[in-house]
């Protein structure tokens, strides 16, 4: 121990798995944990604002900082990893990461009629999570699926932070290197699990949002980070990815989905293909719920697309008890008000679908009024918890509801404006498809009840697990789908909500319930 101190290195014991990591004296705990492979996704990039990197100190508590005191409230045993600099040996546990498992699994996928001896990999390169799907063409099935945190989350939680970093060449290089490494590692892991050689991968299809593609291709934002959010990649039918960048052999054919604008990227074009939005059939709406909500409408032979700034509420970020759709998240609520928890067990927080269905439930029960005001609880505070008088960290606060109102109004306003541009009464929609990584327990009824989507018969509303990943799978080794995707930039009309003269009124009108 004495020797360690001389070297100014301390030991941090991580519970519950008992792992030890070595940390330089004064090193930031969040970055030390990141070096040990422990990331806090969807964070505020270490500014002490989001509270997602809270750790429980089981040894002597370091002094609390002002921001920690504000954010952690009654949780006095906790500290924020991003604000702590290690000054002694210590023992901590990381409550929100105990059961860290990311799943973006796709069920029931059918590669009709594709027969060959080789394999293909479909990749959904998300801002937070990268999902890999290994397709065995000889059997026509997905043989392996694997999801991992995008290692860029360590550099910055959201696209805007990463784009700001990317203005500096060395940071841009680091972001590019980290995403390429993440893809290389993921592919390696997939191949090892399936016990196949890298040479048997004949084709890769990758869907990523515009920012992810810029950084993957080694470009900075080139202006896509500021209004009017345009990208030089827009409209290009062919984006070239060198297979060597992601550890593949030179013969592997890599298809990237095209980009429509700075905020309507390859993830959306892939989702369009997955949902057949480019086929002129009926009046159909596709919604991808996320920090940036993308909305696509097919009506009267036109395909319209827009993106709307919903904020991260649907991803559980910035909410008092918000969390990603992982084990322990409340993903829904029963008609009696009992929470459904992902993986069963004790609830830890709420994911996006948990907020949608909880708020719908509370509105129906009269606990949230039509302006969004929560009834006071027994302590005369406007908040609600699914487990009365116990788990204080599971409160739904008034501030949460306000953030939720902004998020759902942004989506609803986008839908209203797209329908208006197409001359379509939303009640005439034949189908609404909702996708996004917000959890699975959203019922069409609750999504309609909170005013997130138009009120149409609920049997016309469907949820699609990972539409972007499905689009990428469809394009694997299938030139018909690849061509359809490549044609999208010429076919889809992009609508800029900010240009609408009445946007603010429509947005505000959609905030109430």
């Amino acid at each position, binding site marked *: 121990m004495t020797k360690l101190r001389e070297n100014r290195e301390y030991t941090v014991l991580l519970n519950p798995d008992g792992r030890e990591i070595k940390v330089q004296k004064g090193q930031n705990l969040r970055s030390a944990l990141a070096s040990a492979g422990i990331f806090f996704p969807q964070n505020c990039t270490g500014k002490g*604002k989001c509270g997602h990197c809270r750790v429980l100190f089981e040894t002597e508590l370091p002094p609390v900082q002002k921001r920690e005191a504000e954010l952690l409230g009654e949780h006095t045993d906790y500290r924020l990893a991003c604000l702590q600099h290690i000054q002694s040996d210590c023992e901590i546990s990381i409550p929100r990461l105990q059961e860290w498992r990311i799943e973006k699994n796709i069920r029931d996928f059918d590669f009709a009629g594709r027969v060959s001896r080789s394999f293909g990999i479909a990749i959904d390169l998300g801002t937070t999570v990268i999902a890999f799907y290994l397709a065995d063409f000889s059997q026509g099935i997905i043989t392996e699926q694997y999801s991992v945190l995008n290692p860029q989350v360590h550099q910055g939680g*959201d696209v*805007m*932070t990463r*784009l*700001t970093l990317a203005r500096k060449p060395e940071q841009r290089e680091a972001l590019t290197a980290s995403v390429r490494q993440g893809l290389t590692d993921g592919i390696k892991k997939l191949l090892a699990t399936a016990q196949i050689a890298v040479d048997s991968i004949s084709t890769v299809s990758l869907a990523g949002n515009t920012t992810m593609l810029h950084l993957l291709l080694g470009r900075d*934002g080139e202006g896509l*980070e*500021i*209004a*009017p959010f345009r990208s030089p990649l827009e409209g290009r039918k062919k984006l070239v990815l060198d297979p060597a960048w992601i550890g593949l052999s030179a013969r592997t054919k890599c298809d990237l989905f095209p980009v429509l604008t700075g905020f309507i990227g390859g993830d959306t074009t892939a989702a369009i293909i997955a949902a057949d939005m480019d086929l002129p059939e009926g009046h159909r709406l596709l919604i991808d719920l996320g920090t940036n909500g993308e909305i696509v409408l097919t009506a009267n032979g036109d395909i319209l697309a827009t993106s709307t*700034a919903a*904020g991260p509420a649907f991803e559980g970020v910035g909410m008092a008890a918000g969390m990603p759709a992982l084990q322990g998240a409340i993903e829904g609520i029963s008609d009696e008000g009992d929470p459904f928890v992902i993986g069963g067990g004790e609830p830890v927080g709420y994911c996006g679908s948990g907020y949608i269905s909880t708020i719908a439930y509370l509105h129906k029960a009269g606990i949230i009024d039509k*302006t*969004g*005001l929560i009834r006071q609880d027994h302590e005369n505070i*406007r908040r609600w918890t699914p487990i009365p008088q116990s788990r204080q960290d599971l409160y739904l606060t*008034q*501030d949460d509801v*306000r953030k939720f*109102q902004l998020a759902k109004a942004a989506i609803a306003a986008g839908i209203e404006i797209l329908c208006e541009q197409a001359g379509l009464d939303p009640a005439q929609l034949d189908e609404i498809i909702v996708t996004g990584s917000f959890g699975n327990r959203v019922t069409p009824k609750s999504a309609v009840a909170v005013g997130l989507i138009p009120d149409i018969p609920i049997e016309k509303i469907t949820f699609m697990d990972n539409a972007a990943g499905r689009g990428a799978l469809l394009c694997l080794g299938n030139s018909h789908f690849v061509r359809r995707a490549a044609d999208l930039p010429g076919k889809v009309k992009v609508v800029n909500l*900010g240009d609408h003269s009445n946007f*603010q009124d429509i*947005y*505000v*009108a959609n*905030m*109430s319930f």
Partner: protein
Amino acid sequence: MSELYTKLSDAVVAMKADDVKQLAQQVLAEGLAPEQAIEQGLAAGMNRVGELFAAKEYFVPEVLVCSRAMYAGFDILKDHVVEGAINNKGTIAIGVIDGDFHDIGKNIVKLMLEAAGFRMIDLGKNVTLDRFSEAVDRENPRIIALSTLMTTTMDSMLEITAKLLQKKPDLKVIVGGAPVDTDFAESIGAHFYGGDARAAVIGAHQLLGLSLEA
């Protein structure tokens, strides 16, 4: 203070535009001072709305409906105000900075500052340094209020603040918006961080050495 002013204030808070109109007519019929009715009735009501908004009791739609009620009364009273009788607390130029189009937060802040008695110059959204600069020359504001919702435009907030202060060293700068905080405000040399519309009103008073009650 006339009981009518309290009723006006209550009607603004209760979002009752028709009641506000009727009360405003009554103020004129009874020969009361319209400027007092504006300050102690309408503006006082809007001030309470600001407090409710800050406490999250009221949300954006309610604030806008209240403001419509306030303006319904203001439109009736304003033509009867003796020139100069309403205390103008100072000119504030406000805008969402270059590179950002999100302006609803800015609109609420503007509304509250206007109701509190400031003369507001609204430069809109996506406002460049040049346009802020022109507004400083033209309107000689005492305060400039900068808003952004996006982290990517924060650098330009720094530049705009620095250049405007170079031009007019006694100018006060208030910043606001989701990615901004007190530390950031200090780091770019701004004088106040307005966490919400209510805070911006308090800050504007502080920066100009005014009492909130006036």
